[in-house]
């Protein structure tokens, strides 16, 4: 056994888990009319099938004033019980345990959804929702207690094995605990004992409602990471007091608040396992089982955390969204088959934040487990000769899925390595992990029986001569050849050229950012790392306009500033002129309409969009039996859509 600790059983209260992997709570937006849905059932069921020992559901609302998101399950309605039963029955058949997370978000709520005032310990607006709440009266606190208890009864009746109360980054309980949000002068504010009073009342109410034998735990925020907030030392004390109450069975942990949401859901730029020191700090003081969550995407790392005694359970969230079968593969020692999460955040947090259903750039089946989950791939009725042109993410996925269905697949790519544009994108500063997307698939493509032909530039005639039944064109895109006047002049380069390290750049570089995403900012950062003086001109209000939902904005901006990059926002660039070393940029402010010239710069880098590379498609159109056009060569988008289309096409051939 490779993972001695990871696959050892553990008891949380009366519940014995078969291993130490917990699928941690996170929003899914799968709820329908604020009720648990079939999508929930298949989504959690897939992770149970994949071998996770414990599943903790997304937060469920306990009170009408708790409407942080539009699609939260309202656990205080008894109507949720039948849906809960379906979910728990489905999960239990795979020998996994499932807990339900209950939460009241307090000030971190949006009253415009519920059309009720937001409730909080003190009338302090949250930094993200910016709504001044109502200061809770003692009766309100008692009402929330009753609703917590009521919801917990529904959870128990719904067949769950336990309940977790969210006292972490986004919760009313944390707002009571933290001096940052609790300014009360009555018995619920002031001293630590007073600040803990309301959260303890919630725990007591729930414990009384569910009985002694039901597993009950809390999720604490291990460090608020904000001046004036709670730090690890204080949370250790709070945790010890909760433990001493004897009412809880485990302690799950999170980190930070909405002041620094980028720490809650650390993106690719945060190190793997970045919260381990905090979990270890809690574990030193707490005897109850302690959880550790935060970019642990690898069973080897998880095993190390457990063996070092830094936690008793390993929380995996994005790792199991990306590959539900990670626990099973780790148990069987098939590490090379694991699809590792890269923390890109575009599919999961990037979609959640803007009220879309959960997704994953690397796993198109998220939320569609019923249709696309494990075991739904049927062998092709007719075995065809399939030719996939282009070995980027779209082509790889199309080839893999078609190969798995029994087609005879040939994958052609003109480069030396598979990966397409990903190979270039991963050269941006701090984006190396992005390349794992390709590494994850390479073996799978081989295992699917696909024949890979590298450095193979096929002409339409050669393809027609080979007479395939199906041709999938996934030839991708390239930077626009002429996005702005003067782009063909000297010392003007595009992002791909810069990342591939081809051009000789001068010391003073200006990057024109119409992209707003890593394509621009990670390139700028890389140039700064190379010692260039970088200036960014963007048409948006700020540099990195697309990075907000993925929680990359804050740290990207921080690093760019630390590296001396300067910005000019609001500018529509109209012309790039001048000779090398004397480049000038002309443009106007989109708000004030004032024209201006910037310069001189040694070189100009353009991040001004992509254009399709679809010549092959048009040459073949109407001449082959079946022709598909997928990924960037349809319209240049991001990697999630490339993989989505590749997956869908490979399934349908």
């Amino acid at each position, binding site marked *: 056994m490779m993972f001695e*600790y990871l696959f*050892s*059983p553990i008891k949380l209260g009366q519940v014995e888990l078969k291993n130490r992997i917990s699928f941690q709570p996170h929003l899914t937006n799968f709820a329908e009319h604020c009720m648990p849905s079939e999508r929930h059932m298949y989504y959690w069921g897939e992770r149970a099938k994949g071998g996770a020992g414990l599943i903790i559901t997304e937060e469920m609302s306990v009170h009408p004033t708790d409407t942080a998101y539009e699609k939260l399950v309202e656990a205080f309605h008894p109507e949720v019980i039948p849906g809960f039963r379906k979910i728990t029955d489905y999960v239990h058949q795979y020998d996994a345990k499932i807990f339900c997370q209950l939460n009241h978000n307090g000030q971190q709520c949006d009253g415009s959804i519920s059309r009720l005032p937001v409730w909080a310990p003190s009338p302090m607006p949250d930094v993200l929702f910016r709504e001044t709440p109502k200061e809770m009266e003692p009766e309100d606190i008692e009402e929330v207690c009753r609703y917590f208890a009521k919801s917990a009864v529904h959870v128990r009746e719904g067949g769950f094995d336990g309940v977790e109360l969210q006292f972490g980054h986004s919760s009313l309980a944390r707002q009571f605990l933290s001096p940052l949000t609790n300014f009360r002068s009555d018995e619920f504010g002031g001293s630590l004992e007073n600040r803990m009073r309301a959260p303890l009342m919630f725990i007591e109410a729930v414990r009384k409602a569910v009985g002694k034998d039901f597993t009950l735990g809390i999720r604490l925020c291990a*460090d608020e990471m904000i*001046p004036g907030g709670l*730090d690890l*030392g204080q949370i250790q004390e709070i945790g010890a007091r909760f433990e001493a109450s004897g009412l809880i069975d485990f302690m799950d942990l999170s980190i930070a608040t909405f002041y620094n949401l980028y720490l809650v859901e650390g993106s690719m730029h945060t190190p793997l396992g970045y919260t*381990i*020191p905090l979990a270890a700090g809690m574990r030193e003081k707490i005897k109850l089982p302690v959880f550790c969550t935060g970019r642990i995407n690898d069973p080897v790392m998880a095993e190390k955390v457990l063996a070092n*005694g830094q936690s008793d359970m390993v929380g995996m969230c994005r790792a199991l969204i990306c590959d539900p079968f990670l626990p099973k593969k780790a148990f069987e020692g098939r590490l090379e088959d694991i699809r590792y999460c890269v923390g890109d955040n575009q599919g999961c947090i990037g979609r959640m934040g803007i009220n879309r259903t959960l997704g994953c750039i690397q796993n198109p089946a998220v939320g569609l487990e019923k249709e696309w989950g494990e075991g739904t791939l049927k062998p092709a009725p007719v075995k065809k000769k399939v030719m996939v042109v282009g070995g980027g993410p779209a082509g790889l996925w199309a080839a893999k899925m078609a190969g798995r269905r029994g087609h005879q697949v040939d994958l052609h790519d003109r480069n030396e390595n598979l990966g397409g544009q990903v190979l270039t994108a991963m050269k941006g500063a701090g984006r190396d992990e992005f390349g794992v997307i390709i590494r994850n698939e390479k073996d799978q493509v081989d295992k699917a029986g696909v024949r890979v032909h590298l450095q193979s530039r096929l002409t339409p005639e050669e393809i027609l001569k080979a007479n395939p039944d199906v041709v999938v064109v996934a030839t991708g895109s390239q930077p626009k050849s002429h996005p702005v006047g003067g782009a063909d002049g000297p010392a003007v380069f595009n992002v791909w050229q810069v990342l591939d390290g081809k051009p000789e750049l001068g010391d003073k570089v200006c990057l024109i950012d119409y992209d707003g995403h890593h394509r621009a900012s990670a390139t700028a950062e890389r140039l700064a790392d190379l010692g260039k003086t970088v200036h960014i001109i963007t048409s948006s209000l700020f540099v990195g306009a697309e990075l907000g939902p993925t929680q990359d904005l804050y740290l990207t901006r921080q690093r760019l500033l630390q590296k001396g990059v300067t910005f000019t926002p609001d500018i529509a660039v109209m012309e790039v002129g001048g000779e090398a070393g004397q480049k000038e940029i002309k443009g106007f402010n989109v708000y004030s309409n004032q024209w201006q010239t910037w310069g001189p710069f040694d070189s100009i880098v353009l991040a001004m969009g992509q254009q399709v590379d679809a010549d092959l498609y048009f040459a073949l159109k109407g001449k082959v039996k079946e022709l598909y056009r997928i990924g960037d060569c349809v319209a240049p988008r991001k990697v999630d859509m490339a993989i989505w289309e590749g997956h869908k096409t490979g399934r349908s051939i």
Partner: protein
Amino acid sequence: MAEKKLDILVILRECSDPRPPVRLMAKGAGIRDRGLRCLTNPADLEALEHALELRDAGVARVTAVAVGPKSLEDSLRLALAMGAERAIRVWNGVLAGGDAVAGAHLWQRVYAILRPDLVLTGNRLLDGGSDPAPALAAARQDLGCVSAALSLLVKDQEVEILRKGDRGSRQKIVAQLPCAILCEAGFKEPRYPALEAVVTATTQALETWGLEDLSLPEWEVGALGAALDQGEFATPRPDPLRSTTPDPSLPAFERILALLSGGIQPREGKMHFLPPDEVVESLMEIFQSEGLLPEAKT
């Protein structure tokens, strides 16, 4: 030929079939018994074959005994079909979870009641475990016990046994009856019962003995009678590795940087070279500046 027929007691045990892959429970918790295929221990069947050969020669009567739940009746009916005269299954729910000492106690009662001239069983269990209970019971009952027997030859009140020794050596031993002999597996082909015998055996009566038949109290057998307490499998909770956590005295921004730097570095130690009379004062100063001492009240 002896005038009185030998009473031979053959002990049949069940073991898991090692050939199909087993389904493991989570690490440390063992093998899942759901869907686990069980078979009669092959060495026991060979012991039965030894006994049946003596029976065929007309010098013995064979009784097969098994301890276990109803599923063991299959093994006993097989013994009947092969030619055993009598089959007894001993079971009571409390017998579950016993160890070798508790097992030996039970077998001793069986020996004492049946008073066999010869106890035959397999030397080892197929699934890798040795079961010392029959041998321990023989010792308690003052019977001789010979292990690793390959063949046996009964002469009057003696039995001559060929034993397997180390590195292929063989040893011939003569034992006085009554005695227990543990037969090695792989040296004798158990007979294949005729279809007719198998059909007959399905309706033949099996004796079922409970604890009262053995006049044993519940607390002397099974888990209660075991000398060893059965522990639960669990991985020990490792002691926390002394880890460096973000220094709470740092401002939040610095703590974040520490976390994001990919690992928290312990703070560097400092060396102070001071004359002895200044050491105490300087230490107090350091302790105070580090927040290790409460500020002096003014």
